[in-house]
């Protein structure tokens, strides 16, 4: 146990020190933490509950827009702000910027959680591949709808207020926002999976009909889990909005084929339904992505496709699943008799 604590403290120290030790990699590391957050959040429903959503990017995009609307709406009329003939009359003081940032990130998280609570009961009537396709449809539809709302800037997208910070410091701030979300989510998940609630969503994954027959409130648990997951994805979306300064609906906010798929690949790579799987998967995938996107440009999608095929065919349980299969005793899977226990 104490060994684990040393590991956790060491990891936390690395997390805090990283942007100062490797300043030129700050943006890279910030994106890595974004991947960890969305992958871990995806695993809450996909891995732990067995509901593979392809539409969690909906919460990311909605979080971006919600973050922007809350941050800007605090001080200005959003419709005037997004009007194409925008002039310099909109200025944010440092105080307004940071207040907007805090309100935007928290507000976006809560708004996305509320969205999940409302749409959850509709979507959880779908099972297996139908849930995946249904949620994918939700994300695609949301992107198209938002790109037609002039109040939100339409297809042009929306610009965020300018940061009062020097860009180098702004990068570090964004890094710590993502990293903070990631650490909070990890600690939350570690606790959440140890509760009866966590056990109940595992039961839903393994045999939902049995869980129902045992009297578990399946719909309630499913909806709440998705909502918690949505809170973190939405908040991460809002941080991305501040990071990107300007974003548009289809390619950035509701980027179904990019981040929407990446988060699933991260989890598959690391191992579904494990606490560390999404984290390790996100690190591996992010490195893979940077290497192919930088040194293999033009072939990067082919490489990604190849990676997915290899995972699905040879590595279905991901890295953690592979370890669990090869070294079950590391995960406490063993025969233990009463006599042995008495002897020990």
């Amino acid at each position, binding site marked *: 146990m104490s060994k684990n604590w040393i590991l956790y403290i060491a990891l936390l120290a690395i997390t805090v020190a990283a942007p100062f030790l490797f300043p030129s990699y700050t943006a890279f590391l910030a994106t890595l933490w974004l991947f960890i957050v969305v992958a871990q959040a995806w695993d809450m429903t996909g891995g732990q509950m067995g509901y593979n959503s392809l539409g969690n990017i909906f919460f990311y995009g909605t979080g971006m827009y919600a973050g922007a609307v809350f941050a800007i709406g605090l001080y200005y009329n959003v419709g005037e702000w997004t009007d194409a003939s925008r002039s310099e009359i909109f200025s944010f003081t440092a105080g307004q910027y940071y207040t907007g940032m805090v309100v935007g990130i928290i507000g976006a998280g809560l708004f996305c959680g509320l969205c999940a609570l409302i749409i959850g009961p509709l979507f959880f009537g779908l099972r297996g591949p139908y849930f995946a396709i249904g949620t994918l449809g939700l994300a695609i539809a949301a992107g198209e709808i938002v790109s037609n709302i002039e109040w939100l800037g339409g297809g042009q997208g929306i610009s965020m207020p300018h940061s009062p910070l020097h860009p180098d410091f702004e990068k570090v701030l964004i890094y710590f926002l993502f990293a903070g979300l990631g650490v909070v989510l990890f600690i939350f998940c570690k606790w959440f999976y*140890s*509760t*009866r*609630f966590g*056990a*109940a969503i*595992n*039961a839903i*994954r*393994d*045999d939902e*009909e*049995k*869980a*129902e*027959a*045992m*009297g*578990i*409130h*399946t719909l*309630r*648990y499913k909806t709440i889990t998705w909502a918690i997951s949505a809170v973190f994805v939405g908040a991460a979306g809002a941080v991305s909005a501040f990071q990107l300064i300007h974003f548009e609906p289809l390619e950035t906010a509701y980027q179904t084929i990019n981040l929407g798929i990446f988060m699933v690949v991260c989890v598959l790579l690391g191992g579904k*339904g494990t606490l560390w799987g999404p984290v390790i998967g996100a690190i591996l995938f992010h490195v893979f992505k940077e290497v192919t996107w930088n040194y293999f440009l033009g072939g990067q999608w082919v490489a990604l496709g190849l990676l997915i095929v290899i995972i699905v065919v040879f590595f279905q349980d991901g890295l953690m699943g592979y370890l669990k299969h090869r070294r079950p005793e590391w995960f*406490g*899977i*063993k*025969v*233990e*008799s*009463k006599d042995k226990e008495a002897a020990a």
Partner: protein
Amino acid sequence: MSNIIEAHGVSKSYGGVKANTDISLTVKKGGITGLIGPNGSGKTTMFNSIVGYHPIDEGSIKFEGQEISKMLVPEIARLGLLRTFQQTRIYSQMNCVENMLISMPHRKMSLMDAFRRNTKADTDKAEHLLEFVGLYEKRYLQAGSLSFGQQKLLEFAMALMNEPTVLLLDEPTAGINPTLINGLIDRLKRANTEFGITLFIIEHNMRVIMNMADHIYCLAHGQMLAEGTPAEIQDDQRVIDAYLGAH
């Protein structure tokens, strides 16, 4: 003894196949009631009707005086009416103790209780029940790696963990090693006497059901063929004919 389950005139058909026609039966509180009949006679359909897996076409089913024929599966389960499955259903990726802990009676839990961890008392109870069914040594193995018979025992222990009022068992001894069956009969009887759980059992093994039940219903071709004490059923010519294929 009062009636805890009262089914009256229940009919259910799948397309043109009449699985149950005008079935009436009662389960006495605190007793062990048996349901027998040849393969395809509609026993499991009747079970499914009681626990709400499919809507019945006609009739009424009451549990503790409350009409349940229009209720959904989880709602009925939360009333304390639980069933096990003919093909076992356990959570295969988890170990036995986790399987047991998931089976905690969620109906007695508020949402805030769900955000708590299981207590030492819960784990002790789970391990005690695993010992009761003889799976204590295998408690940290993945449930999916257990044999079919062991999975049945695990499912039975999970049902006990849930503290039901009535337990519907669909062929509890099918696939279990004959030498273990006596032990299982003993445990079922103890579940009935010690834990006070009313049992309603579908069973093909005549020796088992005649040993346990105090009242038996016999179905054939979706209709009620006979009812009575084990001795009456054993001597009923219609039951013997049904099993030997006279119908």
